[in-house]
C-alpha cells in the first residue's frame, strides 16, 4: 500500500469532501495561498478558489462564530484553528453556542461544523503553542472529539467529521504532520466511537491517544523483549468513547495504563482510568495508572520540555512494575 504523510492525508480528506459536498468550505488564518504554517492545506485554494478556502483576519472567536452561524443555516464549515492553544479564545463560540444549539432547540437546530486544530509539545514552541487541550472540549456535552494517531486515522476520521451533523473537534499532533503511514487509495471512512486494537497482548493494556499511541507501541516493543505482552489500544475518538473495547481488553489483561498528552490533573487519563476502575474492578490486579503530561506550563528549554511528556521508557518502566505486583500510583 502507498504511504503518505499525515499532512497529505488531511489534505486528501478535505479535498475529497469538498468535491463531494458544495456546502463545505474552509475558514481560518492563512489557509488559502499560505496553506497554513504547517502547509497542510497547500493546493486546496487552487482547486476550490478563495470563495471556499477563506483567509480570515486574526479573529478566532469571530471566525468560529461565523462557522456556527453558517452551519446552523445549511453550510458545512471546516474551521482551521492554527494552534490548539487558541481554543481558549473560542470557548464561548464552541461551548456555549455550537455545542448547545441542538439541545436548547429541542432537536430542531444542528451545527454540522468541524474545528480542526492541533496539540503536542516538544516542538520548542513555549507554553502558549504547545498545549494539548482536548480535555476542555471533551468535557462539554454536544461536542465530539477525534484524535487521529496516524495518517490513516487522520484521513478516515476527518471524512467522518465533515459528514457528521454535530460540531466535531479534530485535533492532530503537530509533530506528526510529516510522519508517513499506509493509506489506501480507495475511499474509506473511520466511524466514531470505534477503538482500534493496534497490538494484541495478554499481560497489560496500554491505552494511548494521538501520538501517545506511538509511545505505547514503542513501550510494548521494549516490554516484549522482556517477556511482557502488552496490548495497545487507540480509542481514536474520546467523545464518543468506545468503552466496551477498552473494558474487554482490561478484563483480559487485568492491568492498564492510560497515556495522553494532556495534563494529568483532572485529565483524559483520569476519566478513562476511572471508568475502567468502576466497570472492571473485580478483574483488576493493580490500580489503573494514569500517565499524562506533567502539570506545569510547557517550558521552552528543550531539556526541561522533554521531561514533561510520557516516553516509551517511562511507560515501559511503569508497566514492568505493575506486572511485578508493585503497588505504584501516578506521580
Amino acid at each position: 500500500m502507498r504511504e503518505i504523510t499525515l499532512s497529505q492525508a488531511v489534505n486528501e480528506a478535505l479535498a475529497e469532501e469538498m468535491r463531494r459536498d458544495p456546502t463545505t468550505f474552509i475558514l481560518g488564518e492563512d489557509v488559502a495561498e499560505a496553506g497554513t504554517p504547517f502547509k497542510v492545506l497547500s493546493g486546496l485554494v487552487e482547486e476550490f478558489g478563495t470563495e471556499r478556502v477563506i483567509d480570515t483576519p486574526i479573529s478566532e472567536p469571530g471566525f468560529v462564530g461565523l462557522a456556527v452561524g453558517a452551519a446552523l443555516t445549511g453550510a458545512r464549515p471546516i474551521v482551521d484553528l492554527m494552534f490548539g492553544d487558541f481554543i481558549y479564545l473560542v470557548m464561548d463560540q464552541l461551548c456555549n453556542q455550537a455545542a448547545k444549539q441542538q439541545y436548547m432547540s429541542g432537536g430542531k437546530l444542528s451545527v454540522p461544523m468541524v474545528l480542526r486544530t492541533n496539540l503536542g509539545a516538544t516542538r520548542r514552541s513555549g507554553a502558549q503553542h504547545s498545549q494539548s487541550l482536548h480535555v476542555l472540549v471533551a468535557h462539554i456535552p454536544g461536542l465530539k472529539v477525534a484524535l487521529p494517531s496516524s495518517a490513516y486515522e487522520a484521513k478516515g476520521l476527518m471524512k467522518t467529521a465533515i459528514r457528521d451533523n454535530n460540531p466535531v473537534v479534530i485535533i492532530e499532533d503537530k509533530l506528526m504532520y510529516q510522519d508517513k503511514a499506509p493509506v489506501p487509495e480507495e475511499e474509506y471512512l473511520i466511524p466514531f466511537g470505534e477503538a482500534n486494537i493496534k497490538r494484541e497482548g495478554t499481560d497489560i493494556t496500554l491505552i494511548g491517544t494521538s501520538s501517545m499511541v506511538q509511545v505505547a507501541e514503542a513501550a510494548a516493543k521494549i516490554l516484549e523483549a522482556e517477556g511482557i505482552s502488552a496490548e495497545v489500544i487507540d480509542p481514536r475518538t474520546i467523545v464518543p468513547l468506545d468503552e466496551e473495547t477498552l473494558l474487554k481488553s482490561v478484563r483480559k489483561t487485568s492491568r492498564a495504563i492510560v497515556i495522553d498528552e494532556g495534563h494529568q490533573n483532572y485529565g483524559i487519563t483520569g476519566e478513562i482510568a476511572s471508568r475502567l476502575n468502576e466497570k472492571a474492578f473485580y478483574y483488576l490486579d493493580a490500580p489503573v495508572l494514569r500517565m499524562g503530561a506533567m502539570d506545569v506550563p510547557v517550558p521552552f528549554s528543550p531539556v526541561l520540555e522533554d521531561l514533561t511528556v510520557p516516553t516509551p521508557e517511562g511507560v515501559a518502566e511503569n508497566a514492568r512494575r505493575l506486572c511485578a505486583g508493585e503497588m505504584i500510583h501516578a506521580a
Partner: protein
Amino acid sequence: MNAKTRTKTKTSNATRKDLSKEDALRMYTQMVRIRTFEDNANQLYLAGKMQGLTHMYSGEEAVAVGICEALNDNDRITSTHRGHGHCVAKGANYKEMFCELLGKEEGYCRGKGGSMHIADQSHGNLGANAIVGGSMGIATGSALRAKLLGQDDVTVCFFGDGATAQGLLYEVMNMAALWNLPVIYACENNGYSEYTKTEEIAAGSITARAEAFGIEAFSIDGQDVLGVNELSRKLVARCRNGEGPFFVELMTYRYHGHHVGDINREYYRSKKEEADWKENRDPIIRFRGWLVEQGIATEEEIETLNEQIKQDAKEAVAYAEAAAYPDAAEVDMHVYAETDTATLQAGN
C-alpha cells in the same frame, strides 16, 4: 465609500405611500401582541407560575416589529436574552411560546430552551442568546452562508447597547465589511447596560464603531415603527443587492427592569424618567394615533383588536399551564444530532 451617519430624531409620522392599510394594521397588531405577551409573562413570573430568568421587551416593540416587517420567513434573525419581542415579530405563535416559557413539551424547543433560548427556525428565528453579544458571530455566519451558497436572504443581528462592549462585535463587523455580507446589525439602545447607564459603559459614539469599518451606519428613533420600517425596507433591499452590511442604532427604552426581578431600580434610574417614556414616547400609543388620524382604523376597531389579542393570550396561557411537561426520558435526548448511517459509508 465613506460611511455616513444619518441621525433622525423627529418622528416620521408622515404618510407612508408604500404602506398598505393591511401592512399598517399588522404592524400595530404585532406590537400589541408583543406588549400583551410580556404583560402575561410578567404576571406568570410574579404569580410564581414561571421559574427562572426572563427579560421584558415592553417599550421596545417598534424596533422588532419595524425591522421584522421588512423581512420574509426566509430571512434570518438572531435574538437576545430580551428576545420575546423578536420572536413574536418574526411570526411565532403564542401557544408554543408560552409553552416554552413554562418548560412544556409543546414549546418551540420542547421546553429545553426556555425564555432565554427560545428559537423558531420555521420563521427564521435562529434563537435568543443568553450570552450578551453571543449571537453576533452566528448572524454574520448566516450571512456568509447566504453569500457563499448564492442565496438571497438577509440576516438581522439584534443586540443591545451593552453588547457593544463585547470584542466579538468588532471581529465580525470587520469580516462582514471585508466580504460585503448581507447582515444588518441592529443595536437596540435602551439606555441601560443591565443596571448601568449606557453613557457609563460606552465611550464615544456607537455608530462610529461601525463607521470605522466602512459600514454605513444610522441612528434613528426606535419608538417610531414607521420610521424603523421604512429604513429597514431600504436596507434589506440593499443587502439583497449586495450592498451590505449595515448598522442601525435604534434609540428605545425598556419599561421593566433588566429582568423581571429588578423591581426597585431607583438607584439607577428615576420613576420620572420611566413615566416620561411611557407617557410621551410609547410606540404603540403613537402608532395608534397615526392609524386613527390616517383613517386606517377607528378607535373602536382598535379596541376590538386589543381585546382580541388579550383573549388570544389568555387562551394560550391557559393552554400552556395545562400542557404536559416533557417526559423524563427526554433529558438526554437531543444532545447530539443524528447522522444518517448511509452518509457515513464510503462511496456515498
